[in-house]
């Protein structure tokens, strides 16, 4: 990543756009976008150096509320689109955001492949365990037994565990936060952005309209258990997976896993290969000759 020689400083407000969020008052996503402003200010990249890609859903409105380049894309396809953007312009800082439905239902198939391809992306999922935009249907992270308009007798399906999934898929950075602890969330997002490679942040972002009472911000504040306070070893994937199993029961916040020796990213490997090939490359004007003069 090219760092400008003279670092201009940015403040959180520099990343705030003029667009007024239309989320319901009390939505957890307000806290998430604030945390993103702070994290981006701490990173210090100019807004035009950042591309912010989202899918479809309440939370996917988030790029519009920042001054970064925004891409409100296709339902479930934010990750493939972000990969396209990153490959087109590897110097961009690419953030990806969406809801739990976007990321783990319709877009669920893209997550393992984005992780194993390991482009330098930061994926922030605002997980509220419900489909808010379509007015309260079951989501992939809805707890078993949840009563919604599409599960009147209670859901029969086990929820997806986003932390365990991404850890098992091999992500180098997995963390969880809540807008109840905005400073902590901003730190987590900043660390995720700084991590070289695919970084996943699951944000327990409550739905004030369709969510359960015990999943609101106030309840989060009481229930959250910062990983720092329990002495979790964030270099151990196994320890992280152990803790991640408590997803849905305990609200652990902080970095679950951070690969101490991050694998080379896809973009870095591509550059390396291109460099190696350039050394023994045929001059471009002669490439055609290889095909026609025989």
């Amino acid at each position, binding site marked *: 990543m090219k760092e400008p020689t003279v670092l201009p400083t940015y403040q959180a407000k520099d990343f705030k756009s003029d667009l007024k969020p239309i989320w319901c008052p009390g939505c957890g996503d307000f806290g998430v976008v604030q945390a993103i402003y702070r994290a981006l200010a701490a990173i210090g990249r100019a807004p035009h150096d950042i591309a912010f890609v989202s899918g*479809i859903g309440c939370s996917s409105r988030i790029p519009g509320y920042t001054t970064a380049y925004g891409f*409100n894309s*296709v*339902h*479930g396809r934010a990750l493939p689109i972000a990969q396209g953007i990153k490959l087109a312009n590897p110097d961009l800082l690419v953030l990806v955001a969406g809801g739990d439905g976007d990321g783990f*239902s*319709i877009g*669920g198939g893209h997550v393992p492949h984005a992780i194993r391809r390991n482009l330098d992306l930061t994926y922030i999922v605002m997980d509220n365990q419900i*489909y808010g*935009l*379509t*007015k309260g*249907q*079951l989501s*992939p992270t809805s707890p078993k037994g949840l009563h919604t*308009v*599409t*599960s*009147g*007798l209670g859901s029969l399906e086990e929820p997806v565990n986003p932390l365990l999934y991404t850890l098992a898929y091999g992500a180098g950075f997995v963390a969880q936060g809540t807008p109840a602890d905005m400073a902590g969330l901003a730190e987590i997002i900043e660390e995720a952005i700084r991590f070289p490679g695919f970084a996943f942040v699951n944000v327990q972002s409550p739905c004030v309209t369709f969510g359960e009472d015990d999943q609101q911000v106030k309840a989060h504040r009481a229930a959250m258990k910062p990983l720092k306070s329990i002495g979790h070893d964030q270099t151990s994937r196994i320890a992280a997976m152990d803790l991640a199993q408590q997803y849905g029961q305990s609200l652990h916040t902080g970095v679950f896993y951070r690969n101490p020796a991050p694998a080379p990213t896809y973009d870095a490997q591509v550059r390396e290969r291109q460099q190696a090939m350039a050394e023994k490359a045929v001059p471009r004007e002669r490439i055609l000759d290889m095909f026609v003069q025989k």
Partner: protein
Amino acid sequence: MAQTRERPKPVLHPDFCKGCGRCIESCPKHCIEAGTEIDGATGLIPVQLRLDSCNGCSLCLEACPEPYGLDHESPEPRSSEPPHIPGTENLVAIAAKRRVAETIPDVRVPMPALRPLVVKGTYASAIGALLAGCRHFFGYPITPSTDGAELMAKLLPELEGHFVQAVSEVATINHMYGTGGAGLRCMTFTSSPGFSLMLEGLSYMIGAEIPGVVVDVMRAGPGLGNIGPEQGDIKIACRGPGHGTTQTLVYAPATPQEMLDLTMLAFDKAFEYRNPVLVACDGYLGQITGRVDLPSYMVKPGLPDWAVWGDAAHRPNLHTSILLNEADQEAHNVKLLAKYAQMIDREQRADLYETDDADVLIVAANTPARTAKGAVAVLRKQGIKAGLFRPITLWPFPIRALAPVLPRMKAVVVVEASNGQLEDELRLALSHADLHAPPPITNVRHYGGIMPQMNEIVACARAAHEATPSRRTRETEAEAAARVLS
């Protein structure tokens, strides 16, 4: 009907077998033993076949050095009188035991007279599906279609049915491929972006001849668009739902009553033709509330003979859309085309309103047709004889109902909430019917979630009426051509 093909098992010709035993070594199932009897004709000892556990791998055929020692079973033995082939007695016995699946017909159960309902369009459609015997619903939330799915989620568990919120529209249509393949009635509600995602699966269903009903509550596009009403899916619904040689019946209801009636009809037609059926309504109609009279019957679905039902009788059935042999694929397409031709022949439906004495014809479907109906009344008060032609099937376009009234018209006004997709269907149908000199066609179009307004339709129809000379004095293309040539 596609069926599983059993791989041919080997047949021994004792006259040619020299008993070398290479086949014995090659057989992974140990079906072949060294012989004990000397063959009278050759004086050699041929091997013996015990084909109980043979899976037709044909490795023995490859191992046999003799051109005719071991051979494929002839493909005919299932005919009425199986020829006696040595070593295949057991096979013939299995074939004889096989029961043949028979179609269990649908039954129409009379319903008592019930008070009419006052419900929104998507609810009416969901109720229609339940009355048509649909007990399997798959869907993914998408505004403005979700209400229908929510009603199904509420009612199906009490009717021993299944409601599954799929992980995406891609999953939805493939769930339907599965349930439809089992011969059961299933459906989904979706809206335009979701319908786009279903096209691949629809093509597979059409290819494998699997029934199913998709209700598309069309919203504004392209892309994410918005949740306002539009008719922008007419093109993908009528001009190929999915890739390849695909066609489906496309119903265009205009009222909640028709949402119920046409959804019920869609199930019958889906099974009659073994083809998915689309019900295309606009976002308004999905949400608008109206009086709905319940039908006099409901359907207790049977089970078609082609179903992959999971018992011995249905065992030979196979659903597939892959035919690697080009000639087979062409033959399959020809068969599908014959089916589509039958649909064109039998399934055209239209509603004609005040067309008997009309000289200006408004063509509209879905909610715009209701607005147009109001416009007809206003125009008639103003002294203009307007009529409404409302296609109920968008595909096949009901040209047969249109053709007789067309010569009386001075002008045609196509009213739609799309970029001329309905007009394209009209013009294509005219062309296919060799009606090359229709009256001048003008249009009222809106997009983006805005519906054509009544005053616009009235103004457009007035202008068209005044601009056009009467039909009697208007030169037809043929007359013009004749004049130019002379």
